[in-house]
């Protein structure tokens, strides 16, 4: 039994494009399909939805076979999924309310209790004032919110989202992202989310499937892939790791949160939060400096002991180092990007114990909400 798992393997050609992509991911949280435009992300998503049929394909969701090589192929309308397209694609001849209710199970279907209630979705997506309006009179962001609500109300067991933000401008993206975060945190609904924007991945994804030219490069937990120097994520100029921090304390006087991650603690300026809540911490490789000894008095609030576990040259003058936090180097991993000059002057190498230094303000809000 492959319960609680998304398994997707598709191979075939569409015109000149050849796809040979397969991945397995836990069917909980957000799985991001990430890669450059034209790498086959949408094709994979359409295959999962059954909108596209690859002769050679397997699609298994929570132990249910939607497609198999023996010819099993469930038509789209029999798959319990929700699909949010790049453009909202609302039905222009129906009101917002009737759009929302289009896929909702009819009363007569009885037994299956609604897991996602109308009032909850309308409230979550703030579409109450729009209900009786026509989709024609909505803004781009409003339309996309209705489209998300419409998909949710069909009571899916899996939500597929194809770059739902890419057709929107920055301001509208910032308006929708919090909805998606709330969605992820409030509904226990697995999501497969396509994007080519790393900031969206960092804010939303739990797992990531890296795609390139019709192939899957790697798949796994976000932080694992971010800190793998053999993958393009870690080598990018804006490389970062996303850590799951648990709130330990809130310093009301300075407006700082103390967040615990495996092997260390971070202090970051942030709005108040309750002890025990989870917060994502994005640590950008360029913001992490390394020291061999604890420095003296410094403005840097985050100085965490750890160990260099991997290093890779970037071009001829820079080094990307992977640091494992904690005295024994068993905790969460950080990336640090530094000059080869510093690397050599400090005598750094794999296995060396170091202190990672991160300015608290580098962890503050800003990154990932698309404001430059």
């Amino acid at each position, binding site marked *: 039994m492959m319960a609680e798992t998304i398994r997707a393997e598709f191979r075939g050609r569409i015109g000149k494009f050849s796809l040979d992509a397969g991945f397995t991911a836990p069917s909980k949280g957000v799985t991001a399909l990430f890669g450059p435009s034209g790498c086959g992300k949408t094709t994979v998503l359409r295959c999962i939805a059954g909108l596209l049929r690859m002769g050679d394909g397997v699609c298994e969701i929570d132990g249910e076979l939607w497609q198999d090589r023996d010819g099993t192929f469930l038509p789209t309308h029999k798959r319990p999924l929700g*699909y949010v397209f790049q453009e909202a694609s609302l039905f222009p001849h129906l009101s917002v309310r009737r759009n929302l209710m289009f896929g909702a199970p009819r009363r007569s279907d009885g037994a299956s209790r609604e897991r996602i209630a109308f009032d909850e979705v309308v409230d979550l997506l703030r579409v109450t004032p729009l209900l009786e309006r026509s989709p024609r009179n909505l803004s781009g962001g409003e339309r996309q919110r209705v489209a998300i609500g419409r998909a949710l109300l069909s009571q899916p067991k899996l939500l597929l989202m194809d770059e739902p933000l890419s057709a929107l401008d920055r301001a509208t993206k910032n308006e929708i992202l919090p909805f998606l975060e709330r969605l992820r945190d409030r509904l226990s609904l697995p999501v497969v989310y396509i994007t080519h924007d790393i900031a969206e991945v960092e804010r939303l994804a739990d797992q990531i499937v890296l795609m390139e030219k019709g192939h899957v490069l790697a798949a796994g937990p976000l932080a694992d892939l971010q800190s793998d120097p053999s993958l393009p994520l870690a080598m990018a100029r804006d490389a970062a790791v996303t850590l799951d921090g648990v709130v330990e304390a809130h310093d009301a006087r300075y407006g700082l949160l103390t967040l615990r991650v495996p092997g260390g603690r971070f202090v970051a300026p942030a709005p108040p939060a309750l002890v025990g809540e989870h917060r994502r911490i994005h640590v950008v490789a360029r913001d992490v400096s390394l020291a061999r000894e604890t420095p003296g008095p410094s403005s840097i609030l985050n100085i965490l002991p750890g160990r260099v576990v991997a290093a890779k040259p970037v071009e001829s003058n820079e080094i990307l180092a992977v640091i494992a936090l904690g005295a024994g180097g068993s905790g969460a991993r950080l990336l640090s990007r530094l000059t080869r000059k510093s690397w050599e002057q400090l005598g750094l190498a794999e296995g060396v114990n170091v202190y990672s230094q991160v300015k608290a303000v580098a962890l503050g809000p800003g990154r990932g909400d698309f404001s430059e």
Partner: protein
Amino acid sequence: MEAFAHIWEPVRLTLELAAITTLALIVVATPLAWWLARSHARWKEIVATIVSLPMVLPPTVLGFYLLIALGPDGPGGAVASLWGARTLAFTFWGLVIGSIIASMPFVVQPIRNAFAAVGDRPLEVAATLRASPARAFWTVALPLASPGLLTGAVLGFAHTVGEFGVVLMIGGNIPGRTKVMSTAIYDYVETTQWREANILALGMVVFAFAVILSMITIEKRFARARA
């Protein structure tokens, strides 16, 4: 007053014929247009061409073949024999069949274009919302294509009202049964009843004007609504 009754009969018959023909055409042409718009079959354009033939053929050619098909030795005769008649030619129902075929392209074309304009996306969305293909057709494709259906119906009705050649060939211009407005005008002119011919002709001009104007208005309104 008697003259009025004389003129009214072909008018009534024309409206009856056009109404029945239009209804039948919507029922037949809609699934055909759907298939032409959605199918990937290579031979679908052959079917589309056959359906379009009445647009370019002289009505006499169409009428000639219909006459043979509806006559005692054709399939029409076989159908007529079910209720003891010899032929469907020179009957009202023969006219209905002829009109359906003659007006078919004018109905299929706008409906096909409307279905094509709906595109794949709304149907894909419907499928991802658990709508079976049948439900997607009735609740999404058909409403979205409704301007095309309306245009098709208006054109089909108007073309049936205006058909002359086919009606003359297979109808025989029998008063009360197959004598419609277009052929009645011909009769009136032949028998130099200018006043009657004038009334009918003017009526048809007004009718044609109203049809074209209403179509333009419909199209404009929908274009605005769907923008």
